[in-house]
């Protein structure tokens, strides 16, 4: 009797998309706890969360889009554009709330453009958003002349976005958690969530059943871009400056975190909890390696290994779960 309950619970757990990343997270966490002396301190954990939160907000957006069967290579540039607009409007003396809204609106517009181009032209999102990535990065470089924008002021809004409220712990943690909770709610409890999974998991079947898959895709492109924009504003609130290369390479890190978190590149499968753990894992590896005394160059190599191992394990796990 008891063993059947245990078996039941085990079979439920192993079928979750985030099962693999959860185990990986624990293993790496325990590893660093032994390898790096100061890893298990409040400030060190807070530092990891700060890095993970900014990456994680982008990861959550990209996961939402990947479940709908598309992806977005332009989120790094969108993050840069939004941060830059926020910084420029702030230095120009505009109220911060206006700057924030303008930044998010710009991000939404870029997402809308990406989405509409993808569904109208049927060019794969890989190509469209690669072009978009280069385009907007180029615009940032041209507008700023390659120089960073600094801002010396402060405000409650900036604090609310990413102020320090306890030791090294920052407000971004709450934004991250909030985004994950809202998107989890949408995916699991609303009809729209059902349509997102269907759009990525079987577009033809979804269309046959009357789901407007193009609209779902465009909406998710916008969500992904707005969240990248929000991350850009949050990052600006931390550094009080934006340099023109801000966010470069982040798109790949976010996709890596999403995939490590169990989300399928092919769509129709994934979870926000997975995105959360994926982003935390990437943040943890980044800090942990430094603390363990490894040269920071090794960070990328290590993430690469984790990505490959995680993908292989996730595919195996899914086959096992679908038996």
């Amino acid at each position, binding site marked *: 009797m008891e063993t059947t309950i245990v078996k039941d619970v085990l079979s439920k757990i192993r079928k979750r998309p985030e099962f693999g990343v959860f185990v990986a997270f624990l293993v790496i966490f325990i590893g660093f706890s032994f390898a790096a002396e100061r890893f298990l301190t409040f400030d060190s954990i807070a530092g990891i969360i700060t890095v993970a939160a900014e990456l994680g907000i982008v990861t959550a957006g990209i996961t939402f889009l990947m479940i709908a069967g598309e992806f977005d290579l332009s989120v790094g540039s969108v993050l840069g554009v939004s941060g830059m607009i926020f910084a420029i409007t702030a230095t120009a003396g505009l109220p911060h709330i206006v700057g924030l809204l303008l930044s998010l609106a710009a991000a939404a517009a870029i997402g809308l453009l990406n989405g509409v181009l993808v569904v109208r032209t049927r060019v794969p999102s890989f190509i469209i958003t690669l072009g978009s990535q280069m385009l907007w990065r180029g615009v940032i470089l041209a507008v700023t002349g390659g120089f960073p924008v600094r801002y010396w002021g402060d405000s409650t809004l900036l604090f609310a976005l990413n102020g320090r409220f306890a030791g090294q712990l920052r407000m971004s943690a709450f934004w991250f958690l909030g985004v994950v909770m809202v998107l989890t709610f949408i995916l699991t409890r609303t*009809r729209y969530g059902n349509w997102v999974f*269907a759009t990525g998991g*079987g577009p033809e079947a979804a269309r046959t059943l009357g789901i407007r898959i193009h609209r779902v895709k465009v909406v998710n492109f916008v969500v992904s871009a707005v969240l990248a924009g929000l991350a850009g504003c949050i990052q600006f609130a931390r550094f009080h400056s934006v340099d023109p290369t801000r966010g470069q390479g982040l798109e790949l890190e976010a996709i890596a975190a999403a995939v490590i978190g169990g989300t399928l590149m092919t769509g129709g499968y994934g979870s926000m909890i997975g995105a959360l753990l994926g982003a935390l894992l990437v943040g943890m590896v980044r800090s942990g390696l430094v603390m363990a005394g490894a040269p920071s160059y090794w960070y990328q190599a290590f993430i690469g290994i984790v990505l490959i191992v995680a993908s292989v394990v996730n595919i195996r796990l899914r086959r096992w779960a679908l038996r």
Partner: protein
Amino acid sequence: MSGDDFLVRMEGISKRFGTVQALKDVDFDVKRQEVMGLVGDNGAGKSTLIKILTGVHKPDEGKIYFEGREVSFNSPKEARDLGIETVYQDLALIPLMSITRNFFLGRELVRKVGPLNLMEHRRMDEIAAGALREIGVKVRSPDEPVAILSGGERQSVAIGRAMHFGAKLLILDEPTAALSIKESQKVLDFVLEAKERGLSIIFITHNIYHVYSVADRFTILEHGRKVAEFAKGEVSPEEIIEIIRSGHAARKGEG
């Protein structure tokens, strides 16, 4: 227009795709509580005719009457709203999603909580499991992904879904094409069960023996034209096959 006898009447349906004449002046009808076998070789126009009836394509010429009233569908949804449910060859199921989520896809049950519409997972689970049990399909749990089901079980889920959503007309597109003998038999049982419940069924297939055992009438298409129409007693399966092979009704008059 005897609206009482016929659930569906299609009159003088023609459809061209570019230079291809897919259908030419086809009359087709289905009575209430009747199983109509729609047969013919590949490219005969069976799918096109059904796609016109389900609102996927619009006919170039011809009229469609449903329950005695003339109808014109702009989308598959409009046809579905009238009670025309189709089980497609690809089943329109999404493997990675749960049985319940598939069952209710596009028709999710929601409950209003403040400004939010929440999906009622438990109720949907119960209804899906109940509907499938009713037609004799056993699934371990409705939140299992469709991917773990066999071909026959998937077919059952798709048919169960169509039957549950109150279809008046159930269209089965090659429902036995990919199934084992045992599973095919089950599908044929569903067809009779659906008829028992008062539904009309259009059964599209290559397999004359399958359709022959359940159909009341047959319509035979060839090269976009209707070549014959028979009630079951009038022909043997071998004669139907011969007609399809030769492309015309050799000995029996057109219905």
